[in-house]
Each structure stands twice: as C-alpha cells, then as structure tokens.
C-alpha cells in the first residue's frame, strides 16, 4: 500500500515489488482486511471506548453521536465497543472451525485419493453422501442436537465444512499419485503414510490453503446466521450474528442497531473472499479466473 502511493520513478527491486503488488491487489487487500480484523480481535479491549457490558439505561437505543459513534443498544451499551469486542468471538469460531475442517479434510482426502481398495472407497462414498446434505441444514441440525453455544457451533461448522475439502483434495491427490516421483518412492519401499505426508501432501497443499481461506468467509456467514437464529453464541456475548438477532427486535425504534454488526460481517467475509481469490491467482495461475 505504501508502494502504490510512491510517486518516484521506481527502479530495480522496487519496480518488481510494485508490479507484484499491482498484480496481486486482491491478495494485498485481503491480507489487509483480515489482518486488520485480527488486530482488532487481539487488542479489542484497548481500542474499544467502553466495556462490552457497560450499561447506561439513560442512553438506551440512541442513534450515532460523538459519545457513541454508532449508537447504543436497548440496554444503553455502546455498539461500537460491542462490535469491536465481538470480532474476537466471530473470528475465533470461524478460524477454529475451518482449521478443524481442514485437518479432517486432509486426512480423509489423502486416504480416499491415495489408498487403493476399500478404505479409500468407503471414505469417498461417505463424502459423497455428506455432500448431499445442504451445508446450512446440516449445521442447523447439528447445532440443534448439540445445543446452542460456542462448542456446538464449532462442531456444527467443522463437520459441515469437512466434505468439500476432502473432495477437492482427493481430486488433486489422484493426479499426484500418477507422478513418477510417487512411483519411485513406492519402488524403494517408502511406507504409504510417509509418501502421503512427505511427498503427496506438500504438492497438494496449495489447493487446501485456497479452499480453506474461501471457506473461512463461508464459516463467518454460517456462524453469524446460527447466532442470528439463536442457535450459536448466546447473549450477552457480543458475537456479530447474535447482535443482529437481538437488534432485529428494535428494527422500528432503532434501525441503527443492525447497521454496524452487518457491515463488520460483510467486510470480514469480503476480506476472506479476496484473500482466497488472491491466493488462487498467486499460487495457482492455472486455475485463475
């Protein structure tokens, strides 16, 4: 970002850097947005002007003002502070779920793509079946069974996000399995698990990283939707979807309540989407749009 505002004639290394930044503008923007939210998540208490649960009923349901930049909620809590502190909850749920889904997807995808015979075929069939359950319906059903709360939410999202990763990785592993270096490793007697981890996975990791960052945006959408439905993180924790769910009740009297959490969700999803698209363009020019 500093490089693009540089007006001097670029030369040598800086010209290269400038060109790279311009070519990977999605990636740069994605990293900036997601990085910004990560910073807010870590230092939320220091940045927020008020505490998340600091009530002042005298100022309930007030619109934006100098004291409360985006207004207050029904209990007179500062909305900006609640959204800033809520970043941590939404981001933690999304990243934890995607990390779990990625790990499970890697194990299942590697085995179903690499191991010939029944273990691969059973996993492949199971992934096929899981993919026929609409993701949101599966997440809602699991959240209903687990009960509302952070743990149920993470279990629901990570289970419903595992099959797509397993399926995408399997496709790539099937390609890699035909490469000469895999044949060579098999011939010199390297055990299958070692070939999978040392030789196949590193070559297939790009596609997992890209899919995981695109999924992180989806995870934010599902987590906040479940919070909105009352099946996710419970009030008074200021998770963004939960904020929208409670704010909806005051839509007529105080429509400003639903503005700031919605902008926060959209920006974070936009950041993850740009990050995923940018990573794909940068790491895998073959798939580029």
């Amino acid at each position, binding site marked *: 970002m500093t490089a693009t505002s540089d007006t001097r004639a670029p030369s040598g290394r800086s010209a290269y850097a400038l060109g790279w930044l311009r070519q990977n503008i999605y990636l740069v923007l994605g990293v900036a947005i997601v990085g910004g939210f990560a910073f807010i998540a870590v230092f939320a208490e220091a940045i927020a002007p008020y505490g998340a649960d600091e009530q002042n009923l005298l100022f309930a349901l007030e619109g934006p003002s100098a004291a409360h930049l985006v207004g207050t909620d029904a209990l007179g809590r500062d909305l900006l502070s609640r959204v800033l502190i809520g970043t941590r909850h939404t981001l933690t749920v999304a990243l934890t779920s995607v990390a779990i889904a990625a790990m499970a997807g890697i194990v299942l995808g590697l085995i179903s793509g690499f191991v010939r015979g029944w273990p691969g075929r059973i996993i492949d069939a199971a992934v096929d079946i899981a993919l026929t359950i*609409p*993701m949101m319906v599966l997440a809602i059903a699991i959240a209903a069974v687990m009960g509302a709360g952070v743990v149920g939410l993470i279990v629901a999202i990570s289970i419903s996000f595992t099959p797509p990763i397993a399926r995408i990785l399997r496709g790539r592993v099937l390609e890699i399995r035909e490469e000469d270096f895999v044949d060579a490793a098999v011939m010199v007697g390297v055990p299958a698990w070692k070939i999978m981890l040392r030789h196949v996975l590193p070559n297939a990791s790009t596609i997992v990283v890209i899919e995981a960052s695109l999924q992180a945006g989806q995870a934010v959408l599902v987590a906040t939707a479940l919070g909105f439905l009352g099946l996710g993180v419970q009030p008074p924790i200021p998770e963004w979807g939960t904020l929208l769910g409670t704010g909806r009740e005051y839509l007529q009297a105080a429509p400003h309540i*639903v503005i700031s959490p919605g902008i926060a969700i959209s920006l974070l999803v936009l950041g993850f989407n740009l990050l995923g698209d940018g990573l794909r363009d940068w790491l895998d020019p073959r798939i580029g749009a």
Partner: protein
Amino acid sequence: MARYLSLRILRAVAIAFAVVTIIFFLFELIPGDQAMYIAGPGSTQAEIDALRERLGLNDPVIVRYVRHLVGLVQGDFGTSSVFKADPLSYILARVPATLALTAAAILLTIVIGIPAGILAALSHNRIPDLAISISVVALLAIPNFWLGLLLISLLSVELGWLPSFGFTGWASLVLPSLALAARLIALVARMTRGVMLEELGRDYVRTARSKGLHPSVIVIRHVLRNAMIPTVTVIGLQTGYLLGGSVVIERLFAWPGIGDLMINAIGQRDYAVVQGITLLFVFGFLIINLLVEVLYTFINPRVRAV
C-alpha cells in the same frame, strides 16, 4: 439413456438410505428423555414411563432404527412433542410456502443474474461491466439475513411499500425471495460473464462475424446456448444453498414454510419435527439434483454419449 437414468435413480435411493441412517444416529446423541418432552410438563413419572413403553423408547437402538426405517417408508415420522401426533401432515402443510419462496428465488436469479452477466460480458472492461462486477463481489460478502434486515428497514418500515411479516398476499414474496436470491444472482452473473467472455473469443464467433451475421444473432443463437450449460449447473448445485438459506430467511420474515417450523421445533425441543424436516430438505435436494442431471443431458448432448 434409460440405463444411465436408472443408475442415477438407484444411486439417489442409496444415498437417501445412508442419510436417513446418519440423521437417525445423530439425533440419538440428543441428551435428555424424549418421552418427558412428549408427555409435556406436569405429567407424572408413571405417565412418562407408560408413554416411553408405548412409543418403544425402551427398546434397543437397533430395534428403534429398523422401526424408524419401516415407519419412514410408510410415511410415519415419529411422535411430535408439540402436535402430540405424527408431525408429517403439519410439515407437509408448510411445504408449499417453502417451495414458493425457493421457486421465486430461482426465478429472480434467472431474470436478474443471467442478463446482468450477459451485459457485463458485452461491455467488457467498460462501466456496466465494472458496476456489475463490483456488485457481485459485494453481494457475495453480504449475509442474506442482514440484506433482509436492510430491505425490511428501508422498503417496509421506512417507505411502507412492501409487507415484511408472514404471508398476506403475493407482495409478501418479494422481499424474502430477493434476500434469499441475492447470493445466487451474484454467482450466476459472474459465471455467465465468465463463460460468455470465453465463448465470445472462440473461432466460431469470428467466423460468424466475418460472414456478416448481426451481433445480436451471434449472441442469442450461438453464444448464449453454449454459455447456458455451466450456468444451469451452478443453479442446480446451489439449490442446496437455497434450501439452507430459506431456513434463515423464513425465520427473519416469519414466512410460514418448513424452515420457520424447524427453528420453532428446535426451540420447543420437538425433535421428531426437526428430524423430519432435515430429511425432507435432503430428499428435496436429491430430487432437484436428479432433475438437473436429466436436464443437463438434454442441453448438453456430449454427456449422453458417456
């Protein structure tokens, strides 16, 4: 062709059976006594015990699983704790509203998404293209329920143009279906733009141009037909998203469909209804996928040969 179709149908039936099994054992994990929920508050321990015995909840899990399978085939969805009966008729009464909502969303997707994609491709790198591309990126980031809240706030609360609560006539369909379709409209517009640009660069287009065919004839008769194949696929694949999204949207707009019923049932711990609706969504998705595959073989003759 007949062999291909019967294989696909057989596969769908096998998957349906597997999903029924997975969902059954998922709902076995729910803590608490189902008989207690069904008997309701204020019933004595003796009544609860009698009910549990009558519903066969004391039987081993494998017996209950088989009974569940047999029941489903006969159209028996268990015992609802709210309706005190088989919930199937209550669920089916709400299906038309959900079908209307998703059908309207698909219609909006076709009517808005495809022309937007065509317009963007034909004005490549000029202002309409940029405006549409930016809208696509924005729509893919905005959560559907927040879009719904904004639409309600602006068009219903502020301006009073459209109803936003329940079903009070066909105008009620506008806001929920728009909120539900937004993401799909963006996906289809992006997809249509991409394949159109690809097709416009092909040799047959250059040939048609050089022999003096009018550009609109080239686009309508040749390019569009080829560009529709991936677009139909995207719409088909995304019906899963529409069904899942309809749960959230129905809740927001108090739309009287099965998604709204599902969330009510979760709140009331009426797991027979939750399980029944989950299965209904999966069956619906399977049937739509099957239809898309059939449709696909008709639009794309290349598949039929395989």
